[in-house]
């Protein structure tokens, strides 16, 4: 019996020790597949601006089958003018680069593409080579407000988080195909009720070198909250949603909803510069038609699992106090969360979610007297960057660059304005708001730590927010592993 107990103790002891204590090591391995690095030249960088706003056609601007452009948009171009490059599309002839950054402005009456022709194909692309945006202060009776949008590199897939087709609200999807190849677009439209299954979402034709305007109300009528997924086949396209609000008989507020970055569990939204909060509150109190004059967080959960979200709105100075939302957003649906109680001041938002989500923030500006107006702008989650990024600054209005460091360490960023470089230290979890010089592009040069930035434009109190994009084609060092 003693021997049996002994063998039980020994074997069971060893087995338990192996099960509980022994962890696998990294003893042996077979080699990993090596990637070959190729120096490849890039395709010429092309940036396309949507052009002036669209209003419904027809005599009374009520036709939903035809749209026409109205007004003139102003594009701001920041071109590095690198040697052996030239800018095409600015005027009739190419603008040769001679090594000094150029800020150029161009009036747009239709969609316009600007292309940097690179004879060597070796110049680094991105916003440091070319960045373009457009603004338009619409004053038409059918559309009023500041519409600002980045000009985009044509792509095949976009997510647009913003817009509404509720009563008095109009959302037009503007699809531009600057390529010589016809494109066919498929849409997925999500609202507060989930995915739309309307007919006609697939196979929308966008002819080569043309623009197609699609009223989202034809698919999702009276939807308060909209998110659009655009996928193109054939030629690459650009896509924005032109959103406007008509309150009673008069238009009051408009903006472009620009493409959002990929979904993520953390989103940083710099540039929540709240002004006229009391006026907005006054408007809201006055009539229902102003009920949406309110700061708002929009979230779309693309997966199948509901998102538990914490959204912090943090002030950029000691005098501004933000707010925190702890909410749940349903999977597959677009959910809006009002962000009340924000007094005038500069803020930025940090969204944390347990699942990947798309998010955007609607910033409103109002003024009751004199010259009462209300306007809004959709702020997308900003992209993180550690490499320098440039943004063209319009000649008009007041532009402020909001740079956020959400990390747990302070960092220093160099801001290049024209030939001048200034350094700003941004504390951990803090934002620096830097006033831009009208007409002079700004370069943001981080120091190793990733930062996030948006440019807020204020033209006569009307608001527009532009992201700092870094459009580039695949080039330079490309690693390829062939199996």
């Amino acid at each position, binding site marked *: 019996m003693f021997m*049996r*107990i002994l*063998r*039980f103790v020994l*074997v*069971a002891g*060893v*087995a338990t020790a*192996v*099960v*509980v204590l*022994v*962890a*696998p*090591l*990294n*003893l*042996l*391995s*077979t*080699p*990993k*597949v*090596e*990637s*070959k690095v*190729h120096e*490849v*030249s*890039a*395709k010429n960088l092309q940036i396309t601006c949507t052009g002036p706003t669209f209003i419904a056609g027809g005599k009374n601007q009520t036709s939903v089958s035809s749209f026409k452009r109205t007004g003139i948009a102003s594009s701001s171009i920041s071109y590095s003018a690198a040697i052996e490059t030239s800018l095409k599309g600015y005027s009739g002839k190419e603008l040769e680069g001679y090594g000094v950054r150029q800020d150029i402005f161009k009036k747009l009456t239709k969609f316009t593409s600007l292309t940097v022709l690179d004879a060597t*194909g070796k110049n680094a692309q991105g916003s440091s080579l070319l960045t373009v945006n457009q603004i338009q202060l619409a004053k038409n009776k059918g559309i009023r407000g500041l519409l600002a949008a980045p000009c985009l*590199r*044509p*792509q*095949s*897939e976009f997510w647009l988080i913003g817009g509404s087709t509720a009563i008095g609200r109009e959302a037009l999807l503007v699809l531009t195909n600057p*390529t010589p*190849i016809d494109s066919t677009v498929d849409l997925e439209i999500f609202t507060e009720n989930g995915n739309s299954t309307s007919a006609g979402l697939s196979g929308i034709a966008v002819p080569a070198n043309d623009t197609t305007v699609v009223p989202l109300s034809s698919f999702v009528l009276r939807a308060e909250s909209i998110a659009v997924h655009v*996928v193109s*086949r*054939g*030629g*690459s396209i650009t896509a924005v949603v032109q959103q406007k609000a008509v309150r009673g008989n008069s238009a009051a507020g408009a903006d472009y909803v620009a493409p959002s970055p*990929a979904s993520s569990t953390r989103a940083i939204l710099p540039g929540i510069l709240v002004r006229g909060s009391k006026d907005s509150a006054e408007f809201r109190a006055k009539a229902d038609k102003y009920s949406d004059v309110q700061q708002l967080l929009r979230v779309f959960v693309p997966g199948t699992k509901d998102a538990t979200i914490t959204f912090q709105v943090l002030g950029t100075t000691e005098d501004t106090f933000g707010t925190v939302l702890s909410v749940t957003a349903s999977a597959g649906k677009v959910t809006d969360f009002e962000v009340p109680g924000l007094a005038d001041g500069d803020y930025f938002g940090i969204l944390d979610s347990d699942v990947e989500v798309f998010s955007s923030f609607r910033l409103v500006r109002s003024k009751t007297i004199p010259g009462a107006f209300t306007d809004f702008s959709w702020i997308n989650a900003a992209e993180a960057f550690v490499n320098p990024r440039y943004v063209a600054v319009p000649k008009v209005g007041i532009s402020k660059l909001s740079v956020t460091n959400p990390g747990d360490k302070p960092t220093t960023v160099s801001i290049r304005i024209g030939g001048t470089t200034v350094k700003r230290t941004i504390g951990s979890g803090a934002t620096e708001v830097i006033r831009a010089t009208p007409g002079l592009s700004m370069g943001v040069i981080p120091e190793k730590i990733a930062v996030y930035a948006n440019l807020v434009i204020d033209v006569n109190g009307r608001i527009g927010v532009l992201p700092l994009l870094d459009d580039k*084609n*695949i*080039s*330079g*060092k*490309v*690693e*390829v*592993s*062939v*199996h």
Partner: protein
Amino acid sequence: MSMRVVAVVVSNNQPLYLQKNLEALEKQSFRLERTLVVDTSSSTETNSILDSFVGQSSKHAVLAIQEKATFAELSALAIKQVLEGIENLDDVAIWLVHDDSLPEVHALAELVRALELSPLVAIASPKQLGFDNPKMIVQQGLTVTKSLRPFSLVNDELDQKQHDWMSDVLAVTSNAMLIRANVWADLGGFSLVAPELAADIDLGIRTHQLGLRVVVVPTARVRHAELSLQGQRGKKWLGGSVKFAMAKATNHLRLAHFPLFVSFLYWLTLPLLSIVQIAALLLMKRPDRILFTLRANLWAFFTVRARLRDRHRASLKALRPLFATTTQIKSRSRLAFELEEQKTNLASFQEAPNTRSNVLQRSFLASGGLWVMLGLLVLSFNYFPLGQSALGGFALPLSDTWLQLFANTGTSYQFVGLGIAAPSDPFNWVLLLIGSLTFFAPNLALSAVLFAAMPLAYFGAWRLLSTVTLRNSVKIPLALIYCFWPALTISQATGNYPAVIFAVTLPWLLFALARAGRLGIASSIRSSAQGWSWIAASSLLFAVAAVSAPSALVLLVTIAIAYAVLSKGRFATTAFIVLPAAALITPYLIYQVLINKTPVAILADPTISYQSKQQSVLQALMGQDQLLGWAAVGILGLATFALLSKAKGVVWIWLLALVALMNLVFTQSISFTAGGTGSIFLDASSAVFNSPTPSVMFVSILALSAMGIWLDSLTRVGIRRVIVALVVLGGVMPLALSSMLSPTVVSFGDSRNLPAIFVAESKAGNDLRLLIISKQGESEKQEFRAELVRPSGLRLDSISTAYRTSSQNIALGGEGTTKSAVSELVGNLVSANGKNLLPALKEAGIGYVLVTNNTGNADLAVSLNSVTELDQVGTTEFGQLWRVKASETFKVQDEQTYWSITKSVQLGILVCFILLALPTYRGRKSRRVVQELDEDSFQIPEEQ
């Protein structure tokens, strides 16, 4: 006129027998005229006997001959010598006697009487009795079967005078044969070209052809030791072993006595016939006869001229009545089988452990096994093959045609990726075997594997447990636990075919080994044929397990060693069991060790590099459902209590389980190359780990076996019932629930896993390749992965672990290589920089480019839209597809061969083992025949 007889004794190194033989000759009641001993011995003892013999009488003489002379030559020389000086041979007879025989006193007299009674009798032969046991008839006349195989009319039968009616026969043995001297002279003696065992029959046939008779004289009795046939003489005497001599004799008789055309045809088809004979011998479970049959056929094939020299014009038709009848042949076969069965039973009885007679042994069906299996099939409803093939997770479809599947198996040049000269995965043989079950749609059988996995695992575990316990109350819950074990159900859910096949095979392998080694209770073998079947089945199952789970190779080798030790040193049998596995693995092993110089790659799972994490032992045992997975750990804990029992073997089983646990730790400590072919649609990772399933299932089956032994040995019924209830409630139920809750990754559908247009063109004979590109790594990095897919597509049988771990896949290709060119092509494609890519596309034979749907590929699609050499085809379920313009002018030739030498050898070995493993019903059939014969023999003929 009275007969005169001269005796010739052929002696070869048997002094003891010779002494007695010569004494017996002296005592013969019929006086011998002369006696000549022709001796090939070299021993002094024989010489002294012969000296003494010669000294006894002037009628005695000795002729010493060199040993290398054949029996025919010796007898010819001796007879010539003994007849010298005798002028009239008409009344002379020659008595040819072997030195290992002992004629009774009246033997010669009886034989002479037979010759004197009938002038037509040319040869008379006595009844040949056992030397040590004269009550046994060892031989009494020879004949042939219809196919001219030598046949002894009486063989090892108790002498009850039942054959004393015999007279005329086709031939007789040369021992103690009395032949008329003039007939001998006419015939020219024994044929000098015939093999020893054919010479007697040949002489008999030729005697008959002279119109004379050959008779046996039962009253003449000679004891005969049959040293040659017993293999107690040197092999030179018969020109090889007895079986070889017999096979040679058969071939000689056929070539010499068949009609000329048939004879020629026989010679011509001997190579083919050899294959048929091998197959037949394997089916008859007589692999021991294969070698000499082949040798005899080769001998006959290359010495055909000598055989033809023995041909005579006369036909054998007239002699047919003297041939062996079918009844005689069947009866002999049955007797031989029964004798063998008796010997095996006796051996089994001596070796088998005691069985308990107080427990009723029930068959699988009687214990409701079929119903349990049906229930398990219902629980596996998720895996019902609604489509032709399973997709998702590890699962890839097989090639659509059996021929392609065959071509991909055992090949030595693989058309995967950039192509590689290396053996394909040995696991492909298992896939070929499964695919062959539904050869018209190979995927169907493979899909059914997932569906049938749990029932088959249960059945196997039940059979294995039946070698340790007879109690169904123990076997059923323990077998259920095995089939619900989390490692198996997870592998099933993720479509990990090798792991599932291993888990199903393992209990069957251990069961077959137990049967082959006569281990465990209720494990008896009724015949050597059955024994061979189990050994061959063990070999095949061992091969399946080894190629399905290379990570368990160490464990399998340990099991093989344990088997050899437990089955009392059957090392040769163990080597035989390991042979098919070795045949399948060796080429792959040589490649990995000597050519690829990555020995550790031998242990890599033969699947696509599906993303997998390193797992601790606890995680591997519990599976993904952490809560219910504890039940598995609990069962293992309970099984350790088996060590407290008195039952034998438990400690060894647990020590093997510990080895399996250590193997699990070891194999989880090895990371393998990710990538290779077939995994580009999966999330990229830099390294993958083996599935822990093989080691875990090893631990589980051993632990459950130990528990079975323990529960069986418990004398208190109450305690056993409590433990069984605990096993059911704490093991079977939670694990069953866990298996049902496991999310199923695989789905069933069409076997197509590439864009339809590419597949359609491939089927139409287009050899153009598909380049699949996907972005990988961080979004900031410009890192891309590309895979070149051949027209045969991404198929499980075309996945190559050798390719995955080879320098062809891993290393950067040098300048000018295809790999380098494709890599540069991809760089230019993704950057869409306007370079002329047509030459590179043409060189690589790329007809289509596919960008997968993986995250981060949107920019890639934009780039490809700008490439002027590509036309966008559209979006497919696998990603966006482009067609290369002008690709119809590309010429690509991938001519895959179906055969290689290695493959032929591997296939040959497998076929042999399959034939050997197939159960045959020889015993049952023979028994029935004999029964019918016996019944017939007792029928009283109706009176006319």
